[in-house]
């Protein structure tokens, strides 16, 4: 099944540049035909033939003790995304590399089972056959009923682009850690709750047994005990033991949060209300479940049950779903976090990197970037959002912090990880030892390593990995990276030296096998990867397309469709309940029926599944087939939910229900294939609505850019209008139709310089007469034109204050504003521009405006321009020096000077502001004649 894994060496990207395309000689039999169009400079974004999925997605899998590795759900939950990609197969692979010796049970020398608080492991995997690469994040959740109390799970970010995963490893790791932490926190809570219930049960059982024994004792006057009595006594003893064990477990699980989460005051308060929640959730989704299990009770006041002496066999009982394991609230948060991750890493690597660089650069311009950029607040808001979505993990995240901060050479990671996999002692957490202490121990251990020895060690291991057919290389566990990053500072020389050494060695040993799991380092070496491995990602363009043609209609459609959907949801779940209770009678394995519900991502190519499937499944196959399409049908709304992060909507109950709906509604269709077609077409139309038009979202920018482009093409007098905005003269957009006015105001707002970081001085819609204060406050105003005589006041005010405003009349298609003869705006807003896409145009504007900002910055902060060189120098001389600087050095013509001067004033004000955003700056204006432009 798993043949020799091939290891890709760890190199840094910049080293690659030294020797470009030094293709390593591959053994002939392993070489894969190159991507046919690669030589012709084909579209680098074209879909790689190898990948069977259309875009990146996140897969959550479980290593079920009953059925083995199985996929649970994908994000986005859309069959179209992963297409024919075999999730079962891939789950098997990613779960197979879970090295973490999550050993729970009775360790030697200990009387009671011990829980290990296992750290997550982070691994990058590749599968050449599937053309898939994955960042895999393994985590372990506790389940009282599971073997050894643990349930191994993993979250995988699957992409066709290996580089993307490599380069974004740290970001991915950070984000997934948040999600994982969220899940684990919820799980601990749920587990503790479960234990408490179990203890109550046991307690109750003990009392019952006790009384029974007493009765028997009384009934039996003779001196000897009956076999029955002995059995009872034994039972009692085992219950006693069980109680102690469970109490110990409870103590252990409780000791975790208090030790690890300091200042996490949510615990106590939240405990109460969250404890009931999973039960409620469970009630709505699977009410029949309680018929078999004693443990689950939906009532908040728990009545203990009698526990039978013989516990049910492992295959008889139904394992808890992920949601049940993690407490609904936390599960929801995790889903939100995951879809946030999906969103965050959506797109081509190139795009991701560019935007990251972009952001980093913009941060450097901290003096000027407030003028036109809104990214800073976006960035912050994203962070805030994340925190609000998943506030707990950020506080008690694993010690991987250093991983993000200092990108350490990956060799050491592998060394460490290898080390850890060899000496499993390192991974396991000793319970007595505090987390911090433990780490320190490890650090000292590692730092005592001789660097050279270190490398030799590594080298040896790599050889070993090739020779052994069965071994699985696991790299980059979280624990070891964090540790090593510490040691990194101590032995920086080793660090800089090591990558090369390793690479040279790794090259010679590299093999590619058709059916292999490739365990890759976190840092790619392009030289070592054949072209066809460099999976590319098509979404950079496709996404744009799909978003570009959206319209307002989409939203309306969405809005109108959702209420019935919700309504049907109720019906659906009811119906579902019925069908489930039916199947319940068949056997205990309602698990199989639950499968399509809880994990609707099941591919319909079940035949290939490695995971053994219970027989009922095939009987249900037809239905399941429907489910698959149903998922597709539901997708847009689901997408919408996950992207917008309204947590209330993310309630899995709702999601679950809506899936059911589509299932039932689908049953009405006789011709499934045609339905699929129609769904495909509509869903593509509907996806745009996924994004609620947030104030500064990417989509908002696209839309604004597009409308601005439209404006520029449509109106020949766009230049003076834009000049007005840039020079701080309020532009009033006058019109009758609110939507049109708002749209244009939004579009033009990208040209409006901000006063501060707070908010854009843009008022989208006003219907009352304008006042002098408005011009001081707003630089772009959408004004309602009312036909009634009441509007006279509005027009009076407008004409009275005409010297402060430019008036764009949308109804008459006129513009009244000062003359513009500069060269700046024509470059910014060329109506013959070849740019067609909104986002591209937005970027163009952004770059132009950044350029402008730098000019303004230069002008503002040039000392000699503003201060007299000596005492006798007159103001006129200074002024003329300024003028010549603007003209000659900055190359500004005519009115362009005023734009830069205005921006300079804003810069000055911003720089001097003590508390930003508290006051509005003064209204600056010029006494210049206005002209009336007509189409």
């Amino acid at each position, binding site marked *: 099944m798993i043949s020799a894994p091939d290891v890709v060496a760890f190199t840094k990207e910049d080293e690659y540049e030294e020797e470009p395309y030094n293709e390593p000689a591959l053994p002939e039999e392993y070489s894969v035909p190159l991507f046919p169009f690669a030589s012709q400079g084909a579209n680098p974004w074209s879909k790689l033939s190898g990948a069977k999925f259309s875009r990146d997605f996140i897969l959550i899998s479980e290593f079920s003790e009953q059925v083995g590795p199985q996929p649970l759900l994908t994000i986005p939950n859309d069959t179209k995304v992963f297409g024919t990609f075999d999730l079962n197969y891939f789950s098997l692979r990613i779960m197979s590399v879970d090295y973490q010796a999550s050993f729970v049970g009775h360790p030697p020398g200990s009387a009671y089972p011990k829980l290990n608080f296992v750290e997550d492991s982070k691994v990058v995997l590749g599968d050449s056959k599937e053309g898939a690469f994955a960042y895999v994040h393994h985590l372990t959740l506790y389940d009282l009923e599971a073997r050894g109390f643990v349930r191994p799970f993993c979250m995988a970010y699957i992409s066709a682009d290996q580089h993307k995963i490599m380069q974004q490893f740290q970001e991915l790791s950070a984000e997934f850690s948040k999600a994982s932490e969220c899940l684990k926190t919820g799980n601990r809570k749920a587990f503790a709750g479960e234990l408490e219930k179990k203890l109550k049960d046991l307690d109750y059982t003990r009392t019952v047994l006790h009384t029974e024994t007493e009765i028997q004792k009384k009934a039996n006057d003779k001196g000897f005990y009956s076999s029955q009595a002995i059995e009872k006594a034994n039972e009692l003893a085992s219950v006693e033991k069980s109680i102690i064990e469970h109490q110990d477990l409870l103590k252990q699980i409780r000791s975790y949060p208090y030790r690890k989460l300091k200042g996490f005051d949510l615990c106590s308060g939240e405990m109460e209300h969250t404890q009931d929640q999973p039960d409620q959730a469970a009630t709505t989704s699977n009410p029949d479940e309680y018929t078999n299990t004693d443990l689950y009770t939906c009532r908040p006041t728990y009545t203990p049950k009698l526990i039978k002496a013989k516990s049910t066999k492992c295959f008889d009982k139904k394992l808890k779903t992920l949601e049940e394991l993690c407490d609904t609230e936390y599960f929801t948060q995790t889903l939100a976090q995951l879809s946030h991750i999906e969103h965050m890493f959506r797109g081509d690597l190139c795009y991701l990197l560019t935007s990251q660089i972009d952001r980093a650069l913009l941060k450097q311009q901290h003096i000027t970037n407030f003028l036109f950029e809104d990214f800073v607040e976006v960035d912050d808001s994203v962070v805030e959002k994340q925190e609000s979505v998943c506030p707990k993990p950020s506080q008690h995240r694993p010690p991987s912090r250093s991983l993000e901060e200092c990108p350490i050479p990956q060799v050491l990671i592998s060394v460490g990880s290898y080390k850890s996999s060899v000496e499993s002692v390192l991974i396991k957490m000793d319970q007595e030892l505090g987390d911090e202490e433990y780490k320190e121990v490890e650090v000292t251990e590692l730092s005592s390593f001789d660097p050279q020895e270190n490398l030799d060690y590594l080298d040896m291991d790599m050889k070993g990995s090739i020779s052994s057919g069965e071994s699985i290389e696991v790299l980059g566990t979280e624990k070891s990276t964090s540790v090593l990053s510490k040691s990194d500072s101590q032995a920086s020389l080793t660090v800089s030296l090591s990558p090369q050494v390793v690479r040279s060695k790794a090259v010679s040993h590299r093999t590619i096998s058709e059916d292999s799991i490739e365990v890759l380092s976190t840092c790619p070496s392009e030289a070592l990867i054949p072209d066809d491995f460099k999976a590319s990602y098509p979404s950079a363009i496709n996404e744009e397309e799909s978003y570009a043609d959206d319209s307002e209609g989409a939203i309306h459609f969405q809005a109108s469709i959702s209420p019935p959907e919700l309504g049907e949801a109720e019906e659906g779940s009811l119906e579902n309940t019925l069908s489930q209770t039916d199947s319940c009678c068949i056997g205990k394995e309602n698990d199989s029926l639950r499968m399509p519900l809880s994990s609707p991502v099941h591919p319909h190519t079940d035949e290939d599944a490695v995971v053994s499937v219970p027989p009922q499944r095939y009987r249900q196959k037809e239905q399941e087939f429907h489910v698959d399409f149903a998922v597709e049908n539901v997708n847009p709304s689901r997408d919408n939910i996950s992207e917008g992060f309204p947590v209330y909507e993310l309630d899995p109950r709702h999601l679950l229900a809506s899936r059911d709906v589509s299932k039932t509604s689908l049953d009405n269709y006789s011709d499934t294939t045609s339905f699929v077609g129609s769904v495909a077409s509509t869903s593509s139309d509907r996806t745009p609505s996924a994004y609620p038009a947030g104030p500064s979202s990417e989509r908002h920018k696209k839309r604004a850019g597009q409308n601005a482009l439209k404006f520029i093409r449509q109106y020949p007098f766009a230049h003076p209008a834009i000049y007005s905005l840039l020079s701080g003269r309020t532009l009033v957009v006058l019109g009758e139709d609110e939507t049109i006015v708002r749209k244009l105001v939004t579009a033009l707002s990208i040209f409006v310089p901000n006063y501060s970081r707070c908010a854009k001085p843009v008022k989208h819609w006003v219907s009352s007469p304008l006042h*002098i204060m408005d011009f001081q406050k707003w630089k772009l105003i959408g004004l309602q034109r009312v036909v009634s005589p009441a509007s006279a006041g509005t027009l009076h005010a407008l004409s009275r204050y005409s010297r402060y405003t430019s008036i764009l009349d949308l109804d008459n298609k006129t513009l009244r504003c000062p003359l513009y003869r500069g060269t700046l705006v024509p470059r910014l807003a060329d109506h013959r521009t070849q740019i067609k896409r909104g986002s591209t145009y937005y970027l163009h504007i952004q770059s132009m405006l950044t350029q402008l900002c730098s000019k303004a910055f230069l002008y503002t*902060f040039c*000392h000699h321009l503003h201060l007299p060189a000596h005492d006798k120098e007159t103001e006129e001389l200074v002024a003329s020096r300024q003028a010549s600087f603007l003209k000659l050095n900055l190359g500004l013509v005519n009115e362009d000077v005023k734009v830069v001067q205005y921006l300079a004033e804003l810069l000055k004000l911003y720089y001097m502001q003590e508390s930003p955003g508290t006051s509005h700056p003064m209204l600056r204006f010029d006494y210049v004649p206005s002209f009336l432009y007509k189409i």
Partner: protein
Amino acid sequence: MLRWLIGGGREPQGLAEKSPLQTIGEEQTQNPYTELLVLKAHHDIVRFLVQLDDYRFASAGDDGVVVVWNAQTGEKLLELNGHTQKITALITFPCLEGCDEKSQLILTASADKTVIISLNLEEREIAIVWNCDTGRQVQKVSCFQSTVKCLTVLQRLDIWLSGGNDLCVWNRKLDLLCKTSHLSDTGISALIEIPKNCVVAAVGKELIIFRLVVPTEGSLEWDILEVKRLLDHQDNILSLANVNDLSFVTGSHVGELIIWDILDWTVQACERNFWDPSPQVDTQQEIKLCQKPNDISIHHFTWDEENVFAAVGRGLYVYNLQMKRVIACQKTAHDSSVLHVAKLPNRQLISCSEDGSVRIWELREKQQLAAEPVPTGFFNMWGFGKTNKQASQPVKKQQENVTSCLLELVGDLIGHSSSVEMFLYFEDHGLVTCSADHLIILWKNGERESRLRSLKLFQKLEENGDLYLAV
């Protein structure tokens, strides 16, 4: 009002021609005010502004609140609450010579028949009675029978006077020193100090001269005596002002402007024919039609060494003291009554009006016979020794053609949406206007402000140690 519809002067030329109102286009190269800051703190009409020092001013109005502002930054420094009704007079009470010059008092009189002395924003205060914090209300007097309509401070004697239906004299500690008997029900509308310990009060149509009896060795009592009543005005006196050491000037509702000798209280010159239909008015039917007494009432004066500038109805008149006649006029300077005028050092004149605008004028020598000469009918002069009006007229006309000046509109400030009540000119910080739209606007010279900001910027850079000078 019509002009608001039209917008700037650029558009319909036809209308502009019909209207006698001089307009200026959007291009105002000589208008230095290219920056404005709207200050909002009042909730009713703001009627009074008073300058406190180089950078501060106080505003007061119908909401009974006094606000102290920083004229440079537009920052609100203090809000003085104490009056329950609208404020009718506002004056500063500078302290005595020996005192710390920072301890300045504000006197406010209100329709609630109280006068409040407020301390404004002092760190230290010398006085014993009012140990001060910032903007504390120091003392309140409410023993008035009537609303105090005017206040004046006689700094020399360190006393102040309040004028209502009677005239009261107070000292700094708010002790009533003496008062007159009930003068009239309309009350004193204006009050000024003239030499020889005298004050002039305008009561209805009359001007009453009072003399203050200052305590001497003989008597320790203060007293105020009515010395003389001047009855030359035919209608209510609206404005009263000191012009120079020799004369003071009064203006009445029907457009009489009388210049008085400050020492013997005799009429030096009188100009009472603003309302007379002059030959030129024939061509301007509209004015004639809408000419009401209101249109020629003299609301406010300002003056310099040579001229008295009078706001007469909607117009502005420049009266030369030497020549004793109007040398320049702008009959319709505004759309409605001009409420306040002020002369700037640079030969500029600023006027504000009920129409909500502020206009900046420049007094220029007329090169030749102007297109709109000052009508002779307006110069019906008679003073001492001038008995025959008819005879003197031709001579006047000739003179006038040679020396007449022209008031030229150099700019207007449009910001307020309602009547501009008053304004205050700061040499360094620009112009402050207050209005019935509850707003105060700070008009600034944009270029200068920009320069100042640059200076500040580099100062701050230097403070932060971020300034690197190129070698």
